[in-house]
């Protein structure tokens, strides 16, 4: 009664996504975990540092500039990193950075980080379905709660929680070391669960 799928040998139903757009030059650390269901497009380089995890169906678009992802970041499914935003195309100078994620950043399901020198500081968590506007600079260990929005060009100081309808408060728990430890453990588990295929993107 409880049998699920027509064939047990098939481990995923992931309809292919049309690889529209160019394949970006990538620089991967050897210790990253990237699912072959991830989507990398664009013309500028994409850098991913050691032990970061990219879930299936995450989308990294380097059309607007370089994307660099720090150590031990987790990019969940359906995220759009380097999104061109509502204005469509933006013109950036040569060598400009689209999105920079420092170490220990988590971008949760369906969150959008727009391109345009956007920076997420160390240990920041971007919640489910949130949007980080282009050019925003988010400090260290911030929490952007689900479905929130950080406007374009916004500056968010360290240890800020953005919640509700754009309200902010300070995170005074002082648990950043513990959060980093949890992130390391989560990456350890994800590395065993997500089959990594970095060679697909080279």
């Amino acid at each position, binding site marked *: *009664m*409880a*049998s*699920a*799928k*027509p064939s*047990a040998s*098939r*481990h*995923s*139903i*992931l*309809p292919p996504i049309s690889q529209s757009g160019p394949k970006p030059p990538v620089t991967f650390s050897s210790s990253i975990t990237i699912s072959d*269901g991830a989507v990398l497009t664009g013309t500028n380089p994409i850098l991913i540092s050691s032990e970061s995890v990219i879930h*299936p*169906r995450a989308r990294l678009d380097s059309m607007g500039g370089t994307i660099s992802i720090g150590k031990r970041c987790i990019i969940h*499914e*359906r995220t759009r990193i380097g999104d061109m935003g509502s204005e469509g195309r933006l013109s950036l100078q040569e060598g400009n950075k689209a999105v920079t994620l420092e170490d220990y950043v988590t971008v949760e*399901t*369906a969150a959008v980080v727009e391109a345009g020198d956007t920076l997420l500081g160390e240990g920041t968590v971007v*919640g*489910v*379905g949130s949007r980080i506007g282009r050019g925003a600079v988010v400090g260290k260990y911030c929490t952007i*709660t*689900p*479905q929130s929005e950080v406007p374009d060009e916004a500056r968010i100081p360290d240890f800020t929680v953005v*919640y*509700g*309808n754009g309200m902010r408060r300070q995170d005074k728990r002082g648990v950043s070391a513990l959060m980093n430890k*949890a992130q390391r*453990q*989560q990456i*350890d*588990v*994800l590395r*065993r*669960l*997500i089959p990594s295929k970095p060679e697909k993107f080279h």
Partner: protein
Amino acid sequence: MSRRPPKGEYIETDTGNKVARKANLVGTQNIMLGGKTVIQPEAMIRGDLTRLNPPSSTSSSGAAAPGSNTAVSIGRYCFLDRGCCLRPPSRMYRGTFTYLPLRMGDHVYVGPGSVVQAASIGSHVHIGKGVVIGEMTIIKDYTRILDGTVVPPHMVIPSFSIVAGRPARVIGEVPEGGHEAFELRELYKTVGNNPQRAPV
């Protein structure tokens, strides 16, 4: 004349599940569907995020019993609308990070674009559009979660509540006799390769 019948938009299984071919199911061997469940296009289920070491199986004799590491189990007559995402919740348990199974009862509707990371969802639950259900949430039977709600992690929602807001609060109760509206049998019939028209 071709030997194979033309492919429909949905895969229909013997137990009556209707799974859209455009749905994204990762780790299907860990997803249990109870039957008569509809999965619409672009819905995503992360079955690959399972518990690594089930604590119940103390014997280390090779392969675990089938279904012991189910990541997502769904009851009968559930309806997963377009672009929703079900993923098992995670937590720190005895000092280690683990994923835990997501269990869902019967007649659960998950609206378009909603992300569900609950530990347990009862039967006859309606989750609206663009809802985020935080990790390890427990939702009891006959609950209605309105559009755009953000349910914080670890919240427990009692039966017959109506929930809304960011963060979510219980704003009311399902009225007497209002639980008829949670039935999803009619909705089930309106999709699939041979859909019936919705009753007027």
